[in-house]
């Protein structure tokens, strides 16, 4: 149980925490755009934390470097997919949720 394994466990528990909060947000938020906030940001951060934890567990082997490649790809691709989805939602006329008594 060296220091690398302990750090990996810390990162993975943090990743699981962010996955849980993203799922709770997806279930309880009132509107499509707010749910997209929850799943677009929370899921991406959780996946990145998990992949860093895996890399610290494996060490500097070929497998570890491939995990870093997956992390870089997810960091670039996942926010783009969220952006494309929100643009499509805006174009198709999904009505945002507003508080009662708000006119903006």
């Amino acid at each position, binding site marked *: 149980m060296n220091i690398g394994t302990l750090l990996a466990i810390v990162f993975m528990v943090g990743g*699981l925490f962010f996955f*849980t909060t993203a*799922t709770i947000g997806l*279930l309880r938020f009132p509107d499509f755009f707010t749910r997209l906030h929850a799943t677009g940001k929370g899921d991406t951060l959780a996946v990145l934390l998990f992949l860093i934890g895996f890399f610290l567990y494996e060490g500097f082997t070929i*497998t570890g470097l491939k995990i870093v490649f997956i992390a870089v*790809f997810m960091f670039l*691709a996942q926010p783009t997919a969220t952006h494309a*989805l929100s643009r*499509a939602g805006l174009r*198709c006329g999904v009505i945002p949720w507003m508080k009662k008594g708000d006119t903006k």
Partner: protein
Amino acid sequence: MDIFFLVMGMGLCILVLFVLYRVVYGPGVFNRVAALSAIGNKTLIILLIMGFVYHRVEMFIDISMVYALLNFIGTIAASKYLEMEGSIV
């Protein structure tokens, strides 16, 4: 260390079941597409955890990279199709 990975995997599977509620009951198609993207993210991590449990990570890394790729392309294709209001031509 195996017990730790197994607990993580089971926790993620339970989270996938919770997101499945939004796939079934989401009013409209946009909520369903967003929830499918979330399921794809969790599946990617479950694949890697299974690689660690079986002590053969080299087999599972290529598969998870391809799955991340296909999830990304699928979400962009679905959003493009919905933007054109149901027709591509």
